[in-house]
């Protein structure tokens, strides 16, 4: 199919249930009330010429190109700003209209450079199309020079701004305001002189507030804002719909291609998670896929002190299988294990856990969710009965109160944050939702353009449970609990027990203030607002889970939602914001050592039998090792071999010294990845991986939405990741014969009740499906627990605040908490290999002015960051975003190695590490620590690839 941009209906879809019928050019059409005439025409297949209207922003009515004639109305109204009315009779093509439109176009063209043939947007420019559509053949005016001859702004690494081509339609401004919510662009001057500017006239795009989401580029009808890639390689010729491989929002994109070359990623308007929007990572930061550091050939070595030796795939598989067999025979089958990847597809993850359970013969399989959302799995399963969020993203449109705890959506889940911000700003005369933020830091969403949180509770890191219990105290003691809901939907005795506990005087906000540092009046007000403000929705992130009481916090959140009846309909719910693109899927696919796919415990005989019959093996009924337990067992000398797909545990897991000791004690570490990551420094076998652009499969996002990932180019390494795992299984003697990932999904559906109705065909048909998909819900389940909890009655669990053992003292007086920023993703292996580094070239330490002054530290200084576990150096930035006593950093760069300082304290129920609280000391420094220098040397040594040509 030749390239077609996605159809533009001119103005946004109306959600009205009421239908209106009208006649356009002699044909009748029925559309929802509130639609514009231009949209009604487009739905009927009539395209009215237009320039300033586009369907992801509200109409503005400035270009006067979309004029129509309407019976009974005077003049020629703009069809983009005229709503449909019953019985309306519209004409879109008359000689009079043609003349008017030609005149308008003539004016535009007179102030536009006539270099269409060499313009980057040639063939994909609305101005050009409309000039053709109105039949413009000559221009009577002298060329005006209002816009011509201005300098281009090349500062953004991904798109250019050429003001000489601007037609001042303001689509970019409206996209930035309405879709993205950043309000970075303004129109300077008036009328014909108006010019677009990023912030102040002196700002360029890079220096402005712009977050490079690209919404303006997508909205621009001309080549004024255009992707650098389009300038470089030309316009695309075909497109494939696929899913972003970065974060748990799971944006759908059209990968627009020229041959096998990706030209650009354009957010797909029919994507149900993103509704046509994206962030800088998904839209622009895919250059890593072709990065020169990608490893394309398998490599092996006897010892990690040897250089790597490149081998053919066959040799790699045979060698790997023989090593695994040797180790299994020598040390027993429990010496083997695997780690599945939250970046790989469901099908690939399923195969890795199958290889461990059926091939290695044990349950030693874990996934990176261990270090992020394992407490979500535990907490929500205990209270509600399912290990997943309760809502779809659209639900936020019906929320009245939004409570964000331990999450920084504008940085970590940007597209969902934009949708949330839209609801917070209010729209179409509907007042915005109220906002409560519980976070040690003043995150961006607390105060951003047209948004101000009603309550920000800046708590001491590590006291989430105390704050939530105090909120519950207020709700119960002030009689704000929804007893009718509780009576119908929850276990009343458990509720009474819980209510009695939270009501105790020791749990009042006043009593807990010395611990939480939160103003009791503010906390009371926040609790009242959440309980009584209408539909209350809770969104949370890793600031909840990555604590020694992570699981308790998740349960405390669930308690609050049940106590206020905020479960089971649109606008409410409990929503974990998932980090990696497929972390939900990896958990669903049975990546935990105690659970088979669909969260069934390995000791469940019926569930196990299902798998045993299907796979023809017997399975271990005892749980296996979690990642930290694997490392402990390795140090003890009993865990010897690890197959690690698409994870970099050395960089992402806490207490780097302990991780490296564990890896160094193993005899066979197999890393299956795109790059020689940090873990690969300790690897004996490297199997090159493929990117999401090179494979077929599915990802499941934070709303349980299963979405297709489609192959748009041949894997550079020759094999998709599932093919590598399959070949390894075959080399180990397993009889696996999948010819396509769809067959793996069929097996998943056969063995997993919540996936019973899922298949690639169904996904192609529906676009995406939210599990459970089964006989009761053949089209999936956008909202969960609608008529009752999955576990039956909702379970209130008493969560008593237990302070973490990681305490500040004279040696380590400050608390370090960690997080992420927008332009990078997780350990940064991908984003560090893209132009995104212009926004975040290094990790910085945020420190409050008082603490900085005490230590003689200024912004930009090198500082030493030390904890009981280790020390590192990085540069400081002095800011009052963090409270006194708290410091903050990100962990995107390997050289910083923030995890050198994090400890191995972890969540009591799941061993999810306590990243969010480490007692530290900061001091001035003049360079890298010994650890950093030694590690740098080791990395260089460990990454050598032999260039010897073998003799013979």
């Amino acid at each position, binding site marked *: 199919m030749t390239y077609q941009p996605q159809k533009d209906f001119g103005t946004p879809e109306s959600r009205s249930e009421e239908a209106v019928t009208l006649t356009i050019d002699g044909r009748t059409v029925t559309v929802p009330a509130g639609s514009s005439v231009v949209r009604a025409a487009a739905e009927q297949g009539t395209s009215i010429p237009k320039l300033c209207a586009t369907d992801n922003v509200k109409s503005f009515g400035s270009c006067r190109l979309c004029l129509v004639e309407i019976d009974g109305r005077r003049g020629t109204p703009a069809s983009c700003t005229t709503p449909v009315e019953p019985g309306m009779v519209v004409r879109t093509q008359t000689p009079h209209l043609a003349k008017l439109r030609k005149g308008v176009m003539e004016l535009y063209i007179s102030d536009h450079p006539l270099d269409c043939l060499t313009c980057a947007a040639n063939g994909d420019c609305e101005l050009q199309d409309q000039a053709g559509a109105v039949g413009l053949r000559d221009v009577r005016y002298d060329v005006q020079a209002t816009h011509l001859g201005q300098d281009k702004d090349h500062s953004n690494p991904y798109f250019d701004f050429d003001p000489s081509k601007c037609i001042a339609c303001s689509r970019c401004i409206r996209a930035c305001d309405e879709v993205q919510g950043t309000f970075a662009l303004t129109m300077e001057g008036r009328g014909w002189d108006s010019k677009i500017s990023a912030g102040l006239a002196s700002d360029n795009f890079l220096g402005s507030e712009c977050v490079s989401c690209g919404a303006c580029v997508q909205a621009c009808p001309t080549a004024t804002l255009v992707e650098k890639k389009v300038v470089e390689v030309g316009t695309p010729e075909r497109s494939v719909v696929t899913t972003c491989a970065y974060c748990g929002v799971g944006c759908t994109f059209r990968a627009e291609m020229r041959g096998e070359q990706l030209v650009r990623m354009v957010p797909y308007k029919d994507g149900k998670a993103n509704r046509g929007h994206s962030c800088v990572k998904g839209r622009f930061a895919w250059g890593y896929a072709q990065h020169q550091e990608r490893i394309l050939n398998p490599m092996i070595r006897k010892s990690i002190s040897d250089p790597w030796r490149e081998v053919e795939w066959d040799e790699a598989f045979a060698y790997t299988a023989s090593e695994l067999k040797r180790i299994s025979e020598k040390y027993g089958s*429990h010496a083997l294990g695997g780690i599945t990847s939250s970046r790989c597809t469901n099908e690939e993850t399923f195969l890795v856990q199958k290889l461990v359970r059926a091939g290695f013969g044990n*349950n*030693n399989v874990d996934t990176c969710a261990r270090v992020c959302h394992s407490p979500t799995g535990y907490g929500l399963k205990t209270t509600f009965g399912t290990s997943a969020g309760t809502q779809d993203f659209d639900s936020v449109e019906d929320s009245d109160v939004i409570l964000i705890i331990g999450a920084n959506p504008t940085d970590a889940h940007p597209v969902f944050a934009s949708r949330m911000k839209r609801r917070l700003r209010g729209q179409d005369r509907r007042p915005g939702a109220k906002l409560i933020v519980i976070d040690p830091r003043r995150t961006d969403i607390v105060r951003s353009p047209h948004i101000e949180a009603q309550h920000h509770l800046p708590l001491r890191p590590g006291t989430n449970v105390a704050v939530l219990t105090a909120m519950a105290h207020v709700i119960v003691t002030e009689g704000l609990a929804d007893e009718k809901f509780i009576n119908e939907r929850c276990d009343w005795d458990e509720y009474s*027990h819980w209510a009695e*506990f939270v009501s105790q005087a020791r749990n009042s906000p006043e009593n807990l203030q010395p611990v939480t540092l939160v103003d009791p009046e503010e906390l009371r007000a926040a609790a009242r607002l959440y309980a009584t403000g209408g539909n209350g929705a809770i969104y949370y992130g890793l600031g909840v889970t990555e604590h*020694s*009481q992570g*699981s*308790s916090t998740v349960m405390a959140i669930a308690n609050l939602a049940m106590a206020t009846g905020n479960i089971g309909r649109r606008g409410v719910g409990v929503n974990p914001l998932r980090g990696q693109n497929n972390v939900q899927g990896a958990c669903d696919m049975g990546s935990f*050592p*105690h659970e088979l796919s669909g969260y069934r*415990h390995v*000791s469940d005989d019926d569930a196990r039998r299902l798998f045993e019959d299907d796979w023809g093996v017997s399975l271990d009924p*005892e*749980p*296996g*090792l*979690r990642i930290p*337990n694997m490392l*402990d*067992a390795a*140090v*003890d000398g*009993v865990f010897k071999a690890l197959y690690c797909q698409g994870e970099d545990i050395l960089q992402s897991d806490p207490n780097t010294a302990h991780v490296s000791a564990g890896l160094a004690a193993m005899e066979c570490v197999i890393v299956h990845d795109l790059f020689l990551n940090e873990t690969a420094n300790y690897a004996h076998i490297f199997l090159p991986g493929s990117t999401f652009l090179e494979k077929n499969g599915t990802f499941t996002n934070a709303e349980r939405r299963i979405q297709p990932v489609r192959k748009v180019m041949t894997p550079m390494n020759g094999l998709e990741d599932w093919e590598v795992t399959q070949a390894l299984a075959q080399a180990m003697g397993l009889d696996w014969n999948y010819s396509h990932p769809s067959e793996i999904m069929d097996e998943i559906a056969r063995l997993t009740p919540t996936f019973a109705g899922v298949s690639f065909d169904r996904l192609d048909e529906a676009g995406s499906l939210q599990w459970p998909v089964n006989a009761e819900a053949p089209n999936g389940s956008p909202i969960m627990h609608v008529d009752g909890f999955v576990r039956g009655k909702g379970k209130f669990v*008493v*969560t*008593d605040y*237990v302070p973490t053992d990681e305490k500040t003292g004279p040696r380590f007086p400050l608390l370090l908490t960690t997080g992420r920023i927008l332009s990078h993703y997780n350990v940064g292996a991908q984003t560090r290999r893209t132009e995104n580094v212009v926004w975040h070239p290094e990790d910085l330490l945020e420190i409050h002015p008082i603490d900085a002054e005490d230590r003689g530290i200024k912004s930009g200084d090198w500082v030493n960051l030390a904890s009981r576990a280790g020390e590192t150096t990085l540069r400081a930035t002095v800011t009052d975003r963090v409270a006194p006593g708290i410091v903050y950093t990100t962990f995107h760069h390997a050289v910083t190695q923030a995890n050198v300082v994090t400890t*191995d304290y972890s969540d*009591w*129920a*799941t*061993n999810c590490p306590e990243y969010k609280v480490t007692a530290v000391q900061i001091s001035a420094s003049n360079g890298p620590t010994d650890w950093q220098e030694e590690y740098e040397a080791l990395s260089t040594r460990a990454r050598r690839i032999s260039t010897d040509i073998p003799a013979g």
Partner: protein
Amino acid sequence: MNSVERLVYMANQIATNLATDGTPVAAVADHIQQFWDPRMKQLIFAHGTEGLSPVAAAAIRKLAKSQNAA
């Protein structure tokens, strides 16, 4: 911390967090049964109850007994 010390620490941490459960000893024993791999359980059984809080100790005893019985 070596492995056994860590297991003792973990068992105590689980016991502290389940202290408010109706039947804390059973809850702790059940949690360990569900989430610890066989070797971890064997290590703590072999170690005994030294360093364990009363609830954790009772839970480990209970679990060891049921495993021996099985």
